[in-house]
C-alpha cells in the first residue's frame, strides 16, 4: 500500500492554518468549534497523505472516499479543503450566509463533500454501500468514514460494523474521533463506551488505537492498511476536544462556540502559543 509521507512539520503547518479557519468561523452565529478542533489533525492527515482525493479526480469512480459522519466537525473539513486547494478560501467568509452553502453540517454543494450529514449514524451505512460496490467491481479505492464517539450511541453504527464484517469489507475504514465528549457531557459519564477496542474487535473489525493528534502515529497506523484481510478496519483516534486552544480544551461547555470579535483575535494568538484568552461570551448548550 503506497501512501504519501508528507514531513510532519508540513502537516503541522497545514493543521495550524485549518485551526485558524475554524476559529474564524466560530463567530457571527458560531459553529461546533470544539468538535472541529479535535478532528482537524485527522482530517488534514487523511487528505494530505492517505486518501487519493484532489480537485481533478472528484468525479473519478476510482478515487478514494471520505464520509464525514459526525458532521459537526465540518469546519475542519472546509478549512482543510481551503488549504489543499479544493475550496476558495474567500468562500469561508460566507459561513451561514444565505448566499452560499456553508453551514453547520456538511452538504454536497461543496465539491469534495461526498454526502450530507448531521443526523448521526447514517454515513457508516452509506460508506458500506460504496465499499460494497468497489468490491463488486474489483476496485482498489479506499473508503473512510469519520464518526464521533458520541455518535456511537446510535445503534446503526454497530449494525454497520456487523454488516461490514459479514461482507468482508477490508476496504472500509471507520475512524473514531474519540474526544471523550458528546454535546455538553463526558461520554463515560453518560453512556460509557469503553472498552471500545474490545467492542469493535468483538464485532469482527481489525482495530488500531492511536493518538489522533500525532502525525507519526497516524502515519504508522494508516500505513498498515488493510489491517487484516477480509476484516473492516477501525482506527480509534484518541483526541482532545478543543485541541490547540487550552482555554476551551476538554470543556463540556465549549462545544458549540459563538465568540465575539475580540475573543476571535485573542484565540488566534492563543493558538500560536500566546497567553490564555479570557472568554467572556456566554457558553452555549445543546443545539
Amino acid at each position: 500500500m503506497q501512501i504519501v509521507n508528507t514531513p510532519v512539520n508540513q502537516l503541522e503547518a497545514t493543521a495550524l492554518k485549518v485551526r485558524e479557519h475554524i476559529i474564524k468561523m466560530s463567530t457571527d452565529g458560531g459553529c461546533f468549534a470544539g468538535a472541529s478542533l479535535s478532528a482537524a489533525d485527522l482530517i488534514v492527515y487523511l487528505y494530505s497523505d492517505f486518501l487519493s482525493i484532489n480537485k481533478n479526480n472528484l468525479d473519478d469512480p476510482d478515487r478514494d472516499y471520505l464520509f464525514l459522519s459526525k458532521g459537526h466537525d465540518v469546519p475542519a473539513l472546509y478549512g482543510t479543503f481551503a488549504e489543499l486547494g479544493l475550496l476558495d478560501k474567500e468562500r469561508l467568509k460566507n459561513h451561514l450566509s444565505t448566499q452560499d452553502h456553508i453551514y453547520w453540517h456538511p452538504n454536497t454543494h461543496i465539491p469534495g463533500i461526498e454526502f450530507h450529514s448531521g443526523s448521526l449514524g447514517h454515513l457508516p451505512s452509506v460508506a458500506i454501500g460504496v465499499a460494497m460496490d468497489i468490491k463488486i467491481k474489483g476496485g482498489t479505492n479506499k473508503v473512510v468514514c469519520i464518526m464521533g464517539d458520541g455518535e456511537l450511541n446510535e445503534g446503526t453504527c454497530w449494525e454497520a460494523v456487523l454488516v461490514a464484517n459479514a461482507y468482508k469489507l477490508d476496504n472500509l475504514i471507520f475512524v473514531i474521533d474519540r474526544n471523550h465528549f458528546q454535546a455538553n457531557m463526558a461520554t463515560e459519564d453518560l453512556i460509557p463506551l469503553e472498552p471500545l477496542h474490545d467492542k469493535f474487535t468483538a464485532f469482527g473489525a481489525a482495530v488500531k488505537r492511536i493518538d489522533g493528534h500525532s502525525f507519526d502515529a497516524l502515519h504508522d497506523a494508516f500505513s498498515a492498511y488493510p489491517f487484516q484481510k477480509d476484516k473492516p478496519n477501525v482506527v480509534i483516534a484518541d483526541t482532545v476536544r478543543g485541541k490547540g486552544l487550552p482555554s476551551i480544551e476538554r470543556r463540556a461547555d465549549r462545544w458549540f462556540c459563538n465568540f465575539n470579535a475580540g475573543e476571535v483575535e485573542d484565540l488566534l494568538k492563543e493558538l500560536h502559543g500566546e497567553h490564555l484568552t479570557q472568554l467572556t461570551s456566554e457558553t452555549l448548550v445543546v443545539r
Partner: protein
Amino acid sequence: MTYEELLTQTALSDERFIVMTAENRALVRNIPGKLGKRFIDTGITEQTMIGAAAGLALRGRIPVVHALASFLTMRAFEFVRTDAGIPNLPVKLSSFIPGFLSDGNGPTHQAVEDISLMRGIPNMTVFAPADEQDLVTMLPQIWNHPTPSYVRINTRKTDHQHAPFELGKAEVISKGEDVTILTYGLLFEQALIATEILKNEGLSVGLVNLRSLKPVDEQAILRATQGSNLTITLEDHFLTGGLYSIVAEVLLKHQLTAKVLPFALNEKWFKPSLLPNVLEYEGFTGKQIAEKILGYNTRSVQPEISIPQFSE
C-alpha cells in the same frame, strides 16, 4: 413561567411523570438534580428512548420525552407509531427546534414534515403553541390527557396575552371579512405583524392561532374560510400534510370550498442560516407575508426578529 419550570413543578407534584431525553438537555438543564432517578438520559438513541418510554408507560408512568424534532419524529417514527401509537400509551413528545427553529443546521435537522407524520398516527394528538406563554398554557392539559402527544416546543416570546386553552380548540385572535390568517407555532409572531400591516392598509383581517392541530377545531376553520374572502394558511412546514392539507380535508368533509393562499415550503427544504435570515430569504417575515397578500409593497417596517438563544 418557563417550560422547564412547568415541567419541574409538574413532575415534582406527580410521581407518575418521568423526564427523558436522547442527550438533548437544552430544555431540561436543571431537571436532573431535581428529579433524581425520574430523569433518564438514554444518550443519542432516539429509538431506544421511545421504546423505553413505552415500557415506563406500561408501568403507569407518564414519560415526557425530549429530542430534536427531526430525530424524534423521523428516526424514531416507527417506534412512536408502534410502541406508543398502537397501544395508545401516554408518551409525551416534546420536540426541540421544529420548523424554522433549526436555523443554520441544514436539511438533516429540519422537521418540516413533523405535523404530517405525527397526525397520521392513530391515537396521537398534535399541538403547536404560538409562543412560550401559549406553550405553558397548553401543556398541563396535554400532559394529563390519556393519549400519546406531540408538541412543537416554542419558547419564543411575543407580547400577546393568550386565552385559556381547551384541547381541540383554536384561539381566535380577531375576525375579519377580507382576509383571515390561520397559523400555528413560531410564525404566529410574524402573523401578528402581517395582520397589523394589512389593517393599516384598510383591510378587515382575522387571525387564528390553531394551537391544537389534532384534534383540530373544524368549526374555527369553517368560520374563517366561510366568513372571509381569502384564507391564508401560514406554516413552517411542507405544503403537504400540514395546515393547508388540514384545511382542505375539513372543507371537503363539509362539502365546502374556499379561496386559500398557502405559505409553506413547497417541495423544498429551507435555506440554512440564522433565523432572521431564513425568514427573510424564504419570504416569511410579517412584512413579506402582508405584501404578498396585498400584491403591492408598503412603507411598513419589519420589526427586528430575535435570534434564538439556547444559552444556560
